[in-house]
């Protein structure tokens, strides 16, 4: 077996999903969400995927390439991710990403083409779904296009002797799935958070190799592979009229809450 693992981690830049609901302004005309006062971040499940890659690199050696497709990708966001221990940055920028144009299908086609252009790999890792589209298709799509086996929703990933063993999350536990390398695994948050980079590493991360491609460089016409189009976008109505139950002490408020629920016949 060759030395070390060549790992590609696909990461997407999204508006910080931990932001308050008011930070996601829905523009129903332009059919897009405009983030207000929240920074761009790497989609949290993709951060989890990067953490898995870093652990595998620690255990087996090898290298990690970060791959991201989008438009207006923030240098600072990518540098911070690179500084945790990635070796190379691959960016695919296309103006299709300026609007809500790309769907899972066109995004997977772009990423698969970029991976082909890069060349060999042992393992591709992606988050289980992106925090903006919440779709969960791109990882499995890339695997299908590259014809490698894929396992979704991993809570643990181990590599041994040319095989990857995955614990796949189920609603009431997990299952154990083994696939041969090269393979693709989509990562769930149970694996744990991405480590923090050291300041010194953020400085040196700037010097690591970086490649930027357009869709044209990859020989892909992403617009032609769009299969799902947004017709309407709206702000969901979740707000309710809250009846605040109070009392002179917190204990009294607690008792009154119980009485209130009985009054409303909820017990």
């Amino acid at each position: 077996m060759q030395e070390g693992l060549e790992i590609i981690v696909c990461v997407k830049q999204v508006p910080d999903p931990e932001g308050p609901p008011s930070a996601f302004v829905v523009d129903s005309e332009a059919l897009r969400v405009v983030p207000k006062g929240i920074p761009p971040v790497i989609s949290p499940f993709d951060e989890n995927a990067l953490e898995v890659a870093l652990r595998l690199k620690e255990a087996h050696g090898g290298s990690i390439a970060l791959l991201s497709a989008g438009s207006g990708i923030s240098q600072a966001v990518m540098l911070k991710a690179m500084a945790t221990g990635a070796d190379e940055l691959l960016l695919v920028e296309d103006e299709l990403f300026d609007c809500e144009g790309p769907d899972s299908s066109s995004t997977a086609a772009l990423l698969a083409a970029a991976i082909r252009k890069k060349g060999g790999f042992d393992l591709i890792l992606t988050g289980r779904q992106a925090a903006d589209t919440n779709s969960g298709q791109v990882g499995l799509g890339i695997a299908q296009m590259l014809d490698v086996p894929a396992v979704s929703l991993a809570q643990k990933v181990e590599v041994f002797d040319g095989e990857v063993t995955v614990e796949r999350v189920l609603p009431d536990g997990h299952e154990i799935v083994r696939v041969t390398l090269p393979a693709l695994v989509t990562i769930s948050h149970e694996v744990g958070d991405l480590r923090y980079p050291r300041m010194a590493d953020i400085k040196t991360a700037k010097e690591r190799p970086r490649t930027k491609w357009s869709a044209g460089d990859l020989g892909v016409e992403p617009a032609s592979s769009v299969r799902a189009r947004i017709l309407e976008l709206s702000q969901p109505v979740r707000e309710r009229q809250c009846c605040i139950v109070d009392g002179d002490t917190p204990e009294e408020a607690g008792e009154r809450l119980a009485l209130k629920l009985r009054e409303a016949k909820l017990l």
Partner: protein
Amino acid sequence: MAGYEGVLILGELGDKNQAAGITLELLGLGGKLAQGLDEQLKVVLLGNNVEGAAAELPQYGADKVYLADDPVLGSYNPETYLSLLQSVCEDEKPRIFLAGSTPVGQDLAPRLAFSMGTGLVTDCVGLELGDSPGLLCTKPTYGGNAMAVFVLDTMPQMATIRSRVGEAPSPDPSRGGEVTKLDTGAYTRPSRMEVAGQVKEETVGVKLEEARVVVSGGRGVGGPEGFSQLEEMAQLLGGAVGASRPPCDSGWIPPTSQVGITGKIVAPDLYIAVAISGSSQHLSGMSDSRHIVAINKDPEAYIFKVVDYGVVGDWRSVLPAFTCKLRELITE
């Protein structure tokens, strides 16, 4: 797009090798679409010893059931399932293909969509027929901060659907349907993938997804000890305990208890949120609950905007008094 016809549903099996609840819900939902199109409703069911389950499906509205019954299909292997399902879809050319947002559906539907070169909208909360032949699929995006309606341009039009979106039809034993057995030998190919087994966590008491009352705790609960107090109240109300993501990440409670867009989606009659601030990711998993109660010490917490009853105060003082009074009222 000529030649594509009917609605095909991916059937799944429940605990006792019977059709799963989600499958019956999809029959309800798919039945309406099929009726609107004046076309057939079909189900494909893969598994081991599932003839009984297949025979039940016509009562719930299935005009045709395709059945693959083979010991190899007793556990879900994506590559085997995909090869069978793809050949059914290529032969049957359904206009619409529906699966549940389940561990199998959310894994298999994207694989099928990409192998067939067609579009898929996942995790839908609504489906509607648009102008012919478009299927309009409504789904939450941005962690539930936006609601998007998608239309699919390619056939089959594929969607995965959350549980409780459709309603199971009442069974009509007089209703007939055709059950066709598929030749599994021809499709089951050697796989690059081995499913080596499952590890199930024992659930004590009521299942979170099925509970009529859910008592959930957030970061503010502070540790596993706090969750045993929540457990006490849940037991009193015959409910289950849930959590937002931070307590699961901190190991205070198993990750299977997580309520939210990446955990379980619940809609009980009564949801009690203890020390939960109300992140979008959590709200997306519970905001369809009938009645919602929040206890939180921060009067500005977002959760108070989306609940019916709220108490502003430290849960450590509020909850024991609340539980004590509840016990008194219930045993009265």
